[in-house]
């Protein structure tokens, strides 16, 4: 082995590609096999007579050639696919850009309408102030009652309410590990023998003791799993109405579906809004004297309607803008991958890759985020 320059041994491998070999493979008593890069196919590395290696370069060459051909085919298919994707992406980008500019126009209009309505609403609110303080107080009380309502329900446990779920979720979110630690400590003496076994096993396996308990008791499992999950969804939905950031998150999450959200069907629709709004405002303005209660409600309703519309527009615009910010490759060939997911099942695991978002490994009930 000392004869090898730079610690590498050269095999001619006539009929196949020549190769350099680690000197540790020379006269190691092991012959090269077909497809093995570890030894010479011409057997020249085993020259000390311990073993006699067959000459396998022709077979190896053939195998190498075939695998190379296969590789070329795959590449060729890939090139065609890529071209198709680029074409589709071009059209999709154009469509999305058009939509974006349309949406921006629309936003301008709706913003104006909202602004005007806001003025009306403010006026309305100043008037009754003088008129009837008591009524406002009553209304406030009512609101307070509504707010405290769910808590009472939690106490009596008549039905699961949002507030309780949010609370639960908050706790779970704060420090699940702390809680486990505590649980383990406090309760290990009261556990059944099976529960204790599972609990101790879970230290090595890394599965949370909660999961272990789930396995023992399917009924409990359903409750535990269903509870916090449902709570999570509800609380997000709840938040969505209050803050725009929450709304945005949902927008991204719902991207798959949102592409077919009612898209504006041209200018006529916009004009219509403008018209109806203006008509409405004018009709209200006609009466400069205190407006009847009926009209006040109408104005508020309209105001709410248009602010909701505006926030929908905002979220759609921001999600589109975000989308267009991504790098989709030199020729935007990956544009259509946005918002799509690909799944691969590998025995007990399901791998899910959502480009530009995340990748997960799912194992039955549990899900692991992959970096």
């Amino acid at each position: 082995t000392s004869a090898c320059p730079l610690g590498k041994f050269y095999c001619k491998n006539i009929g196949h590609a020549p190769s350099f070999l680690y000197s540790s493979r020379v006269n190691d008593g092991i012959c090269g096999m077909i497809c093995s890069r570890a030894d010479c196919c011409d057997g020249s590395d085993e020259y000390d007579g311990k073993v006699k290696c067959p000459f396998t370069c022709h077979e190896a060459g053939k195998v190498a050639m075939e695998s190379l051909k296969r590789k070329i085919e795959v590449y060729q298919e890939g090139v065609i696919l890529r071209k198709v994707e680029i074409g589709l992406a071009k059209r999709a980008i154009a469509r999305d850009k058009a939509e974006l500019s349309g949406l921006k126009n629309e936003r301008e209009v709706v913003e104006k309408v909202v602004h005007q309505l806001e003025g009306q609403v403010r006026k309305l609110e100043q008037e009754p102030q003088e008129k009837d303080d008591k009524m406002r107080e009553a209304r406030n009380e009512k609101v307070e009652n509504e707010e405290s309502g769910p808590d009472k329900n939690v106490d009596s446990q008549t039905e699961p309410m949002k507030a309780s779920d949010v609370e639960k979720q908050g706790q779970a979110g704060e420090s699940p590990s702390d809680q486990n630690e505590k649980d383990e400590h406090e309760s290990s003496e009261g556990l059944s023998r099976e529960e204790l076994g599972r609990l101790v096993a879970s230290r090595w396996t890394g599965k949370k003791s909660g999961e272990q308990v789930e396995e023992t008791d399917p009924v409990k499992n359903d409750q535990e799993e269903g509870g916090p999950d449902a709570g999570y969804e509800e609380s997000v939905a709840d938040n969505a109405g209050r803050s725009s950031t929450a709304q945005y998150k949902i927008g991204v999450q719902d991207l798959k579906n949102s592409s077919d959200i009612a898209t504006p069907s041209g200018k006529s629709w916009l004009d219509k809004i403008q018209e109806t709004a203006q008509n409405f405002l004018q009709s209200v303005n006609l009466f400069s004297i205190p407006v009847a209660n009926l009209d006040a409600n109408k104005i508020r309703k309209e105001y709410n309607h248009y602010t909701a519309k505006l926030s929908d527009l905002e979220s759609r615009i921001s999600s589109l803008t975000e989308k267009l910010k991504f790098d989709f490759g030199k020729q935007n060939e990956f544009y259509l991958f946005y918002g799509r997911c690909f799944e691969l099942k590998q025995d007990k695991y399901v791998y899910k890759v959502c480009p530009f978002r995340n990748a997960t490994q799912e194992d039955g009930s549990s899900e692991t985020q992959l970096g």
Partner: protein
Amino acid sequence: MKMKQVAFLFLIFLASQTVHSWKKDEFRACDQTPFCKRARFRKPGACTLIAHDVSISDGDLTAKLIPKAPHDQDQDQIKPLTLSVSVYQDGIMRLKIDEDPSLDPPKKRFQVADVVISEFETKKLWLQSASTEKINGDDGGLSSVVYLSDGYEAVLRHDPFEVYVREKADNRRVVSLNSHGLFDFEQLRVKKEDEDWEERFRGHTDTRPYGPQSISFDVSFYGSDFVYGIPEHASSFALKPTRGPGVEESEPFRLFNLDVFEYLHESPFGIYGSIPFMVSHGKSGQSSGFFWLNAAEMQIDVLAKGWDAEGGILMPTEQSRIDTFWMSEAGIVDTFFFVGPGPKDVVKQYVSVTGLPAMPQLFSTGYHQCRWNYRDEEDVENVDSKFDEHDIPYDVLWLDIEHTNGKRYFTWDKMLFPHPEEMQRKLAAKGRHMVTIVDPHIKRDESFHLHKDASQRGYYVKDATGKDYDGWCWPGSSSYPDMLNPEIRSWWAEKFSYDNYVGSTPSLYIWNDMNEPSVFNGPEVTMPRDALHLGGVEHRELHNAYGYYFHMATAEGLLKRGDGKDRPFVLSRAFFAGSQRYGAVWTGDNSADWDHLRVSVPMVLTLGLTGMTFSGADVGGFFGNPEPELLVRWYQLGAYYPFFRGHAHHDTKRREPWLFGYDIFNVHVNSTLFILMY
């Protein structure tokens, strides 16, 4: 002052941190263990036993141990104990003390079987006579002296009783027992109406049907400055004192085989294996040794100089000396005194009792690549080829528990390993081997042939009520074959034949894990002490040897498989004195941090000193992710472990050696250290 407070708070913080990993309160401390607590309170000189009827019989020096002054109360409880001193070639004295079988004790106490090799018995020297001496400083009391070896004598002082080995020339003592009068032997009794013998610990009840039966005594090593041995502990090579002046507060060194989750890197706490063998060494260059063949829970105090200052017992002071205190929950006194005089002589004497290490197969001395788990055949093939691609030498690829069908050992997961024989053949074609895991817990599943067979034959360890003991381990509800029984060991060994272990080939070897035994829902994560083995032996009596018998049965299986022509390779986690005859051990579930890297050195050295020469620690650390430098350093150190294996927990990042790039691995490890080995 302030600094001190801060430091103190920091220590408390550290202590509370460790609780999270090492569940300290799940394990019994000495003061929660009645026999240990009681023994530690004993005062020097408390022992009143004297040697009576001293004579030579059957080539031994024998005597009865009786209390000096007859007691008024409990007279019926204190029966004479039998004592015998035997002498063997090469300077070995064996001292046995047990209850007198002719006095009809409630039960025969367990004497550990199959550890002392049969050749040792042939080395016995038949004593013909003993001389009686009055030794200076013994207040005119008598001592019986017998020949031990050239230049050494064994001495039994009668009143108070004391046994020791001395150099003939200058009467210099070497090793002695009961010099401080701490000897105590709790005899088996019949339970009285008002007595409650049960012990409870964290929701587990030990029925203790035979009551307290512990033994304790002091052992002194003369001309000694340090003592070593008594693995397995994550601690320094020279054992630190655990009691006496200058020792804040310490547990004794515990010998109780346990599956400890995330063990500490510096603690006298007992972990996976136990070898109750201690070696002393002094600045004079002389060594001596002491071995207590006892498989029950043992606690050993190393006493700091001056520990007995108040005791008032005068010991010869001209020599430096280390005193130790040995306590065991059950069993008998079956002890071996080794005269040395050099450290190598002591180890030679010890292995002449317990056997030489098995000659390993060459491949097993190379590098082993393990992980919990290489998930399927493709993973195996890929890992194997990457070693070739990067020209990193390795010899063995390991499969952990996930390769089985639902943790039923001797089976394969058909999805992940559909062609186990072909997989092994591919490795074997390159001169490589495979190791699969086989643990002692057998899944209680009627459709599993092994369980069906074992339960029908009544081969499982029984619980205190006599039913098959049902514990919890990887497969869930599990039972454990009674490996104390030679018939069951032989049955187990058959399971490794190529016919029985479907999918095994001659290049497949075995890994025994969890054989402390680990029982997830048992007291201290092990089997209850009142579980029953062959012949009514309680688990408490043989606990530390359970893994030894399991290891033995597996190694015998591989020997049988190869018609006695192929040397077995079996790695075990639990061990006992004598395990060296059956294969390798490793230091269990360590962690990927520098402290565990450091402590692996004294741990492996201690194992080597106590006969377990084929040992190592998981390179890289089992729990956690090592930083690249730690991993490199660990490989560099690991190349010097006799048993060299990289292993990792399933939650860790992959860390096969090529994953850290050429510079890190090849330059630092491959090019220098592997070359030493290959």
